[in-house]
């Protein structure tokens, strides 16, 4: 089985997505300027599952928005496959903690928004592809439902389907398992891990922001630990554990303790 073999997966150290010397500041009110990053650099490697941990309010969400091209840094650049990233691209998908689905569209139509500006596909192609992804997250029966008829966990799955339907190379996840019931979270976690491990499927790399350290140790190859604002990289923890990872093992908790110590 591929799953057991994964600890021996090829590690490529070249980066697919990279933020170089990022500077970001926010003008909150008159005179009140918050400096989020003052020269933060971060690399996301090919085929890696990267975790980002940091104290509350250190700018983790901001970092993902910058990496997705949604937020322009004041200084510094984002490189995707060694090309300057100027604006959002279908190759990089971002899942934010807020489940933003348009209430006036069905589940299927909401997922189809991701392919809206793709001129190469016909409407039928788009519907087919979106149905396939909804099927993958287990919502094939709900494509004509409206968001208000779904549970929070189901909404998350719709968001995930919408993020994956563009076949992205990089999937940026910001607290994706927050606010959903624990059982649904377990299922969703293994879903994402399986998709990532399946090398014929997108995404190649996943970046996960989470405040749940166990979750990070369970899923990630490396965990970047950030400092308080203005955020710097405090340490990068490499996690060398066999997948699927067993939470009851001592080594697992050694990693959790290590990251916890770095954060506190």
């Amino acid at each position, binding site marked *: 089985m591929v799953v057991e073999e994964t600890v021996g997966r090829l590690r490529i150290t070249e980066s697919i997505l990279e933020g170089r010397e990022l500077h970001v500041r926010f003008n*909150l009110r008159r005179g009140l300027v918050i400096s989020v990053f003052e020269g933060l650099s971060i690399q996301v490697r090919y085929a890696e599952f990267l975790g980002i941990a940091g104290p509350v309010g250190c700018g983790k969400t901001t970092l993902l*928005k910058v990496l997705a091209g949604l937020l322009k840094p004041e200084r510094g650049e984002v490189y995707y496959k060694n090309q300057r990233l100027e*604006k*959002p691209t279908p190759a990089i998908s971002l899942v*934010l903690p*807020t489940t933003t689905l*348009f*209430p006036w569209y069905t589940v299927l139509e909401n997922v189809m928004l991701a392919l*809206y500006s793709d001129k190469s596909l016909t409407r039928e192609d788009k519907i087919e592809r979106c149905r396939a992804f909804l099927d993958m997250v287990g919502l094939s029966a709900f494509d004509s439902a409206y968001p208000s008829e779904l549970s929070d966990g189901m909404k998350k799955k719709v968001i995930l389907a919408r993020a994956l339907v563009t076949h992205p190379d990089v999937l940026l996840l910001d607290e994706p398992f927050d606010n959903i019931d624990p059982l649904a979270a377990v299922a969703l976690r293994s879903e994402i891990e399986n998709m990532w491990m399946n090398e014929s499927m997108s995404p190649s790399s996943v970046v996960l922001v989470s405040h749940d350290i166990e979750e990070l140790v369970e899923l990630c190859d490396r965990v970047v630990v950030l400092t308080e604002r203005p955020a710097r990289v405090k340490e990068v923890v490499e996690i060398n554990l066999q997948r699927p990872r067993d939470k009851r093992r001592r080594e697992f908790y050694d990693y959790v303790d290590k990251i916890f110590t770095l954060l506190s």
Partner: protein
Amino acid sequence: MVLEELAIAWAAVGVSWLRMAAALFLSVGFSLLVGGVAALNKRAEKIIIPLLDVLQSIPILGFFPLALYGFYTLSPAIGAEAAAIFLIFTSQVWNLTFAVYESIKVIPAEFIETSKALGLSPWARATKLYIPSTLPRIFVGFVSSWSNGLYFLVASEIIDFGELDVKLFGLGSTMASFASAGNVTGMAVTLAVLVAAIILTDLFVFLPLIHYSGRFKFEATAVEDSPIIPLSSVFKGRKLVGRLPRIRFPSPEFMLPRIPLGWLTKRVRFVKTLLYALAITLLAYLIFLLPLLREIPLQKLLYGFLERIYTIGPYNIILDVAFSLARVATAVLFAVAWSIPLAIYLATNRRAALFTIPIIQVAASIPATITYPIFASLLQGYDELRTFILIIMGMQWYVFFAAYAGMRRVPSEEREVLELYNIRGLAGLKVLYLPRGIPSIISGCIAATGGAWNTLVVAERMKIGGVVAGVKTPGLGKAISVATEMGDIYSLALLVAVMVIVIISINKVFWRKLYELATSKLRFPEAT
């Protein structure tokens, strides 16, 4: 020369402002009492809320001559003044009553339970819980109540009703006398003083009040959307001038009357409303005619009313309604046509909005009625055009501000989705901005339609001094204006009743159905 006009203008504004303040004071008392009872007593609620819904859609100007007549008969000395304050009161009060009702309705249950558990007396509960909780919405309501009142203030100061010619000193009469004397400087100075007074009142009275009442809010609001300027810092700061430009204007939602539309749509029925409306119209007439009853017996009064249906003729009434309806519809369409693109442009370009919105807000706060004398002399040969301009000046802002508020309420997360998937321009409009904006655009249209009917009474025909400016074609507003001038109470009552029926029918049958349809199609859980 200019100094003299300046002095007159400031004096006029001062007197008019006093009139407005008196009416506002009465409005607050009324709204606390009636709104409070409606919110606290289920049985009273069932009667009061549909009643308020009718009252707020009644054309105030149609009732004014009657009110004037009633007050005048009671006391010739202060009758005209009392009638003017009454008219302004009726234009300010409904919005505030709904505000009180809504505020008390949304007090979290645990507060009410706590106040009962503490054994507070009803009086203590009113002063310590209910009234403070209404303050944020009341103070916010002041802004739109004030501009509403300004609109009718001008009309309340000069009126010819039969043999009764009333001219109260104030903004409206000053403007009119400058106009009839052909004093352009005087008109310009009065207008400028009015604008200055509006801005000063906003900055130094209403905004500090809104800011102050923030502490009585149960719900926390996001910093970004907070419409309040920290004016306290302006007062404390020594460098007043240096700080003023940083003041943010209140968010334009404040210009809109607060009507809980979603709620009303569900609960108030059409036929019942119509019956209510007719009953109120007749009742109001009878109350004001009470002094008259000493001379004329009731049968004769009712007979006179019915006789007018025959003398005016159903055909003429239908014609009047049709022409007025066409004017109102054109005005609403016009307002929608320019409001939506501009609202979207300004909602997505914060920098442009920063300059444009305050200008629009000041322009919108100038009561259209004060400019009537100017337009009457300016557009002498173009009756329909002048009428159109006067109508849109009275109502287009409702549509614009509602559209803008709707577009601005589009959550940033939803805009980010558009950006992430590269959905721009017209596609973004179709996918996000229109669906989000439509419910508030419709409620803006409802307010605008009501406003348009109200303006008709002066827009279709007006008489200032010896000058009569009116349309040659039929119109309900024109007919009401003529009946007022002739002092024909019976025709007036009939025409106003017709207008009430038309307004309520359009409101119930067309707009609210449209609103219901839109919100259910758009799957908004509980649209406001």
